C-alpha cells in the first residue's frame, strides 16, 4: 500500500483533532458551527489535492497549509495565554507544553513541507537529510506533547 495515501488521510484526521483541541483551549471559541465550516473547507481542499492534485505522491501542499495554520494557531494561543493568564506559572500549565509541541513540530517543518515537492524531484530517492530533520522535529514535538499529557495526568491525580 502506498504510505503517502495513508499519510494524506492521517493529515485530514489530524486536522479535525487539532482544530477541536484548540477550540477547547480557546475556551470553546469560535463556536462549533464555525469550526466545522472551516474544517469542511480545508478538508475539501485536502481531498481535492489528493484526488486531482498531488495524488499518491507526498501531499506536501496540504501539509504545508496545515503546518502554516497550526503555527498561526500556536502563536495566537500564546497571545491568548498572555491575555488570559492561568493562575499558575505558565510552565506548570499542561496546554502550554502541548502548544510548544505543536509549534516546534509544525513551524520547524514549515519550510521542509514547502520545499518537499522540489526536494523529491531534486534529490530523487536520497531523502535522508529530509527525513532526519523531520524526525528530529517530530521527536521534540511529540516529546513536548507527552510532557503536557503527563503533567495533566499528575494534576488530575493530585485533585
Amino acid at each position, binding site marked *: 500500500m502506498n504510505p503517502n495515501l495513508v499519510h494524506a488521510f492521517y493529515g485530514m484526521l489530524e486536522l479535525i483533532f487539532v482544530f477541536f483541541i484548540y477550540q477547547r483551549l480557546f475556551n470553546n471559541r469560535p463556536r462549533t458551527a464555525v469550526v466545522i465550516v472551516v474544517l469542511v473547507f480545508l478538508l475539501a481542499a485536502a481531498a481535492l489535492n489528493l484526488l486531482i492534485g498531488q495524488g499518491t505522491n507526498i501531499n506536501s501542499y496540504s501539509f504545508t497549509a496545515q503546518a502554516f495554520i497550526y503555527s498561526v494557531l500556536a*502563536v495566537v494561543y*500564546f497571545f491568548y*495565554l*498572555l491575555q488570559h*493568564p492561568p493562575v499558575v*506559572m*505558565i*510552565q506548570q500549565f499542561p496546554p*502550554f507544553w502541548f502548544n*510548544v509541541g505543536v*509549534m*516546534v513540530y509544525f*513551524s*520547524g*517543518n*514549515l*519550510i*521542509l513541507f514547502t*520545499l518537499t515537492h522540489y*526536494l523529491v524531484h531534486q534529490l530523487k530517492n536520497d531523502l535522508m*537529510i529530509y527525513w532526519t*530533520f523531520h524526525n528530529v*522535529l517530530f521527536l521534540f514535538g511529540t516529546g513536548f506533547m507527552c510532557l503536557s499529557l503527563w503533567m495533566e495526568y499528575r494534576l488530575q491525580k493530585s485533585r
Partner: protein
Amino acid sequence: MFAVGTGAILLLVTAIILFVVFYQKKMLQEQIHRQEMETAYQRKMLLATLESQENERSRISKELHDGIGVMIQSVLTNVQALGDRVEADVRHDITEAVTHTHQTLREISFDLMPASLERFGLIHALKELCTRLGKRGSVRLVYTGDDSLSGVSGEQQVLLYRIAQEAVNNAWRHSQATEITVEVRQSQGHLTLRVSDNGRGIPPEVQKQSSGLGLFNLRTRAEVLGATLEFTHLQPSGTGVHVQLATHG
C-alpha cells in the same frame, strides 16, 4: 538552504516561547504585587474605620456618662429633696425609675467604651466586664491570667477587648453556658487571649460561614490585629476562642 531556514524558524520559535514564559512570569509577579497592595490598602481602610468607630463610641460613652448621667443624678437629688411635698409612694416610684434609668445608662456607656480600658488598660477592663456581666445573669464569669501587660499598644488593647467582649457576649447569649472564663497570658513575645465556656458549642457549619453570632466581627478584628483566631471544641462541652498575637513585650 532549507536547513538554514528551518534553523531560523526554530530560533524564532524558541524566542517566542521564552518571551511568553518570561512575560507571563513578570505579569504574574505584578499581579501578586497589586493584590498585596490592595490587601494592605483594605486593611488600612478597615483599621481606619474601626478606629473612627472606637473614637465615636468613646465620645458617646463619655457624653452618656458625664452628661446625661450627671443630669439624671441631679434629677434624683431633686426628687429626694422634694421631701414631704410629694407622697412617699410616688417619690419612691420616681426614685426607683430614675435609679433604674441611671443604671441602664451606665451599662450602655460601659458597653460602648469602658472608661477603665482607656484609664487602666485591657486587664482591668476585662475584669470589670466579667464582674458586670456576672451581676446581670446566672452565668458565672471568671477572669484568670496575668495582671499586667507590656508591649501592647492602646489600639491593640481596644481590639483585643472588643474580641473578648464579642466572644463573651456570644457565649453569654447563645451557648447556654453556666460558666465563662476569660484568660490573658503573655510570654516569650506572644499574647494569648482565651475565652472559653461550658455551653453547647458552635456548630462547625456556623464557624465556616464567617457570619452570624458576631463571628465575622471576631475574624475582622483579629485580621486587623494581625493575630490568629481559632475556635476549639472543648471536652466534655463548650467552645474556646483562642487569639494569639505577637507582641514586643
